[in-house]
């Protein structure tokens, strides 16, 4: 009787490879692994992020933050006892993102335990609309900044805004819109969201007109720097 001489059992490398391919296929074709991976990576990194923020802050600042939290709680109790509506906004700290590495999204230290829900709008401390919450969990929320790549928005441009124009996000808080060459728009004009006219989407940064073209391209930039965002306010829907 003859036997195969090279009948080796599959090694650790084979199993590691098989596991890798299965994980990759599962990630491509199924949603559950994507959600699972997102959750574990988010939790793992955010586990360290508040620690870094805490290290940066001095003891005095931490004491002040605790005092503010106490006062907010007391204020809420007093409002409730007087039958007043609870505050519609909550302040939050940016704990991650916003730079060149993690662009167009920031994480804030307020989650669904504080009432933040997907769809809630987020503004800077100056009242400039920053973005929208897309995910919220216990202790954190992910905010998608306006002007991301491929984001479509209806904007009203100019000093006396007329009909809304369709604008496309270019990433990093920038939009591009095409207007008729004769449209009364100048550099520095404000662009507002047509469905949120109280908020500025950005300022006209540049206007490009090609010779012979009936359209001009208007470049709009958000008036804040995502990397300089430290504190924001969440506008609660309720």
């Amino acid at each position: 009787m003859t036997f195969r001489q090279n009948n080796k059992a599959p090694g650790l490398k084979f199993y590691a490879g098989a596991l890798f391919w299965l994980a990759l296929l599962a990630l491509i074709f199924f949603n559950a692994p994507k959600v699972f991976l997102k959750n574990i990576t988010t939790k793992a990194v955010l586990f360290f992020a508040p620690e870094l923020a805490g290290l940066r802050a001095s003891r005095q600042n931490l004491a002040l933050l605790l005092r503010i939290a106490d006062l907010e709680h007391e204020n809420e109790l007093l409002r409730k006892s007087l039958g007043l509506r609870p505050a519609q906004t909550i302040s939050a700290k940016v704990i991650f993102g916003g730079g060149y590495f993690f662009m167009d999204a920031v994480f804030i230290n307020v989650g669904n335990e504080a009432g933040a829900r997907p769809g809630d709008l987020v503004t800077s401390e100056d009242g400039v609309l920053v973005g929208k919450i897309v995910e919220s969990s216990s202790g954190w929320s992910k905010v998608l900044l306006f002007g991301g790549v491929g984001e479509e928005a209806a904007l009203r441009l100019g000093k006396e805004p007329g009909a809304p124009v369709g604008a496309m996000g270019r990433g990093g808080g920038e939009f591009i819109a095409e207007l008729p060459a004769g449209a009364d728009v100048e550099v520095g004009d404000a662009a507002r969201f047509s469905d949120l006219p109280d908020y500025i989407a950005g300022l006209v940064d540049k206007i490009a007109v090609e010779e012979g073209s009936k359209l001009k391209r208007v470049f709009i930039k958000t008036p804040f720097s995502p990397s300089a965002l430290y504190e924001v306010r969440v506008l609660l829907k309720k």
Partner: protein
Amino acid sequence: MIDYRILLPAFLYGIIFESFGAAHFGFYLAPLMVAAFLLAALPFTIRIANLAIAWILGTSLMLFLAVFWGGGALPSTKVLIHIAAYLSPFLIIASAFYDTKR
């Protein structure tokens, strides 16, 4: 022979950005995996040439996806810097595991 020492770090690096980024799913992972596959398969014996080719391919793919998802408009300068900033650390990670001797 597929070199998992490059693919696994690429996969982990890409998935972190997929979790924290704001782009469509695949914007970070797909170009990086393609670049990692290429890096593992390139035949040149000069390490820097293989790394440079993989980086250029990854950058081109990300740029293509950004233009495609951006409705044909060229992305902003910040996005271009972001793409370069995203792919460069991977090369450092990959080069640590990368061995041209086959």
